[in-house]
């Protein structure tokens, strides 16, 4: 009996003791998306980040921004590149210790959109027919935001719809098989397979006119930010260098397409909907532009955005 008690106490004690010695980062772990091209993929391909940060940089691909937050909370990821703003907002609302340090890109509905199937015959004009039908939406992501906003524009009540939680790849498959009449999705390949049997509910221009715009951001864990401010700065700087190179038309598209696992033509198509901001524009967006309006619109707790790492 004594042994049992001492074992139990020992285990409790071991649980309570939390290893608290921090080690300087010997490796930086970055999360990113496939099928979501950005100029800095070229630097990733050429291992330029490792050189710029002075330590090895490990890139891990994710399927949605929610999973990125999960991994950051579990301590497996230090920096999330191009996390959607929606997952970020949900995370900081749930008091996750992460911060926004940069805007990865702004995009119109080119990159994230809702597609209705041709079979259903539903278009913008008769969108209220969506009520009572099944729609696939990756909940908690930017696509959910696009879905909500699009429904407001076309005048359909999302509460009356059967919203099914599905990742973009599955949503596209469900649209093809006719299980859902509309799928909201992101990612070039998913949109391509969805538009093969359907049409975009709102064209890119209509969406832009309706004020729907997506913003992807760069978020870091607070711990990493406090520990290695230099690395965060280097990361942001190199990313902006890559964006600059892309704006000047000097990017190596082959390297980018290889890392994003897309064909060059498809990638160009997706990239055409993206806007990579200059450092100046980024600062403006974060302080009083699109990003700050977006955050305010969703009652995001203040003080999680910092511009001090921008070049």
């Amino acid at each position, binding site marked *: *009996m004594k042994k049992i008690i001492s074992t139990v106490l020992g285990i*409790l004690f071991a*649980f*309570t003791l*939390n290893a608290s*010695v*921090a*080690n*300087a980062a010997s490796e930086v772990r970055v999360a990113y998306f496939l099928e979501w091209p950005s100029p800095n993929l070229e630097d990733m391909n050429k291992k330029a980040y490792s*050189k*710029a940060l*002075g*330590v090895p940089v490990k890139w891990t691909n994710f399927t949605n921004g*929610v999973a990125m*937050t*999960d991994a950051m*909370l579990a301590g497996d990821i230090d920096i999330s590149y191009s996390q959607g703003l929606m997952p970020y907002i*949900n*995370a*900081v*609302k*749930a*008091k*996750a*210790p*992460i*911060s926004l340090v940069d805007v990865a890109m702004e995009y119109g509905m080119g990159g994230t959109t809702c597609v209705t199937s041709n079979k259903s015959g539903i278009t913008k004009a008769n969108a209220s027919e969506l009520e009572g039908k*099944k729609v*696939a939406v990756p*909940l*908690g992501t930017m696509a959910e935001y696009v879905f909500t906003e699009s429904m407001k524009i076309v005048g359909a009540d999302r*509460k009356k719809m*059967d*919203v*099914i*939680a*599905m990742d973009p790849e*599955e949503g596209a*498959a*469900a649209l093809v*098989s*006719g*299980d*859902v009449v509309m799928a909201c999705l992101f990612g070039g390949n998913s949109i391509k397979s969805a538009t093969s049997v359907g049409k975009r509910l709102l064209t890119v221009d209509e969406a832009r006119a309706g004020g729907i715009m997506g913003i992807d951001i760069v978020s870091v864990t*607070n711990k990493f930010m*406090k*520990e290695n*401010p*230099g690395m965060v*700065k*280097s990361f942001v700087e190199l990313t902006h260098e890559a964006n600059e*190179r892309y704006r000047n038309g*000097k990017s*190596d598209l082959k390297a980018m397409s290889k890392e994003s696992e897309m064909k060059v033509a498809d990638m160009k198509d997706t990239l055409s909907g993206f806007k990579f901001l200059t450092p100046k524009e980024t600062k403006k967006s974060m302080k009083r532009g699109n990003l700050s309006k977006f955050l305010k619109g969703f009652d995001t*707790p*203040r*003080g*999680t955005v910092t511009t001090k790492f921008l070049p």
Partner: protein
Amino acid sequence: MITAFLTFLFFFAIIGCILYGRKLIRTEKIDAVFGNPERAKGGVHWVIVGSSFLLLVWLYYSWDIAKSFFPRSANELCQVGKVNESLLSLKYLFPIKERQLKSTSVIKTETENLNKILLEIDKTDKVNSQDKVKLINFINKTKNSIPLLTNENLLNNETKSKIGIITDKINNLTDKFTRSDYPNESPEEEIKRIDAAKKEGNWSSSSTSIENTIEIPSIPKTKRGLKFQAAAVELNAISDEFFELRNHNEQYSSLLENLKKEIKDFRSQFDSAEDITSSFAKDILKIARRIEYASIFPPNTLKDMQGSIENFDKAQKKEQGGLRWVDILLFPSGTIISSGPSCSEQGSGRWLPKPSDTVNKFALMLNPKVGFKQIPLIWYEMMDVSKIVGFILPDWIADILPGEYPVHNEKGEVKPNFKSKVLSFVTGDFKLFKIPIPTGHIWDSFLRVFLGLVAGIIVGVPLGLFMGLNRFAKGFFDPLIELYRPVPPLAWAPLVISVLGIDNLGKVFLLFMVSLSIMIISARAGASGTQLSKIHAAHSLGASRWQILRHVIFPNSLPEILTGIRVATGMCWGTLVAAEFLAGTTGVGFVENVAKKYFQYEVIWITIFIMGMLGLIFDITIRKIIDKTIPWRGKG
């Protein structure tokens, strides 16, 4: 209040039952030796110990004990967290949190990086020797810039005095901090603060909505908390000031300026920025700039400052007093930390919700008006019996009747004829009486499992018996069954869902596949396990084939079949949740999947409990059925 009472109750239950158990062992020693099965019988007191221990661990690691005994501790720890947060970036610079001074480790890694580039340049044959000399010159210049930063004699007087000022500020703060009247709050401010704190509420998750808004109030409620918050504000200013500070003396600045210009000139002679020589130069420049950005100081310059930070750290720890012990003892594996605008639980308290919060949230979700995503957990709705009629009767009955469906007339009216009346009857489009039927997430999950199981039994049991009795059937079906049986059911999920769709059909079919193989195997084992003597006895009494099957073989295999059902039930639950993860609009798995996306840990745990409970109910029911219907089990 209730939590505190329960904590004591569990604690004393454990002690009482352990004492009782020991007493029982002593009295038993005489007649029951080790190995006697009598010794494993009974033992309700150990059940109490087991479950109390489990609940106590839950209460402890979810920090519910801390919440009920020290409801204000989270708020105070939040203020302490603010101080720690503002100290953190300063601490990382010194060997307080790290093993080395930040300057030391930066110099170490950057020297290594420079050597690495040097080696690469040396090896490559794509750079001509002229450029190589230039590149090596850049590297040496970068290397030479480091001693300029670490030389005490070169340190600017201005920088020196600034460091002194910052150190004084920290020392000053330490002095003020230990005084009891710090931070001199005026009575009006105090009233304002207490009002605001009251508005913010207490430490708990929301019990009026599924979403949690404020879990830990961040406005200090106590004097002690206020002290820490005030110190955190001052420390933030100090650390910002320090981070603006760089040890850039004239020599260093001019060297760096020079280097930057040289590299720029050097790179401008290449057409493309991607040229290998040019990119080498770029990499060297990157390192030089990293050194520029890092706060590198001479080795002993920051000694005083380090001392002052350590002193403050000691003072703030002392000032925490009893709170420190609450933190260590009642906040196991984690604590409250502050990050940006809010405080949060980090550690087990984050992902293990408090029992009190979980119960509150469960009660909230059980309310059919709230539910989850507008669908109740489990409730009833009134459904017309006509729907059932419409479901059973096939619609084509109306189509094959002679005549045509009515067409509207000139007045725009539609007059129903016999054919259209039949159609509305077979499609259930009429009114009868209404009956209540269950609905909601739990019911949907339950129904899917039940249907999959029943379908598996209906197909699997006869097939299994047939395979156990017939050579053809055994040979014909065996390869098919044996091939698909060992595949984990989840491996089928993506395929089944894309073939049969995301509706109930796909999910039920998946569960059918799970239960079918188990039922076939168990029915077959039961059939082939029948004792030959019993069959012979029945045969000699003149039983027909059907009678032998019905009265000998089937009852004999029933125990195996029912055990199979129990196993299949467990497997079905496991598969169902994963299938609902993939695509769903209702069901317990769907609830969990969505809750995960919004970090609603209480909801996640509620779904886990629901699934545990449902599995248990299923299992107990089947066990009872077995006991009732086949008393011969284990006796044949």
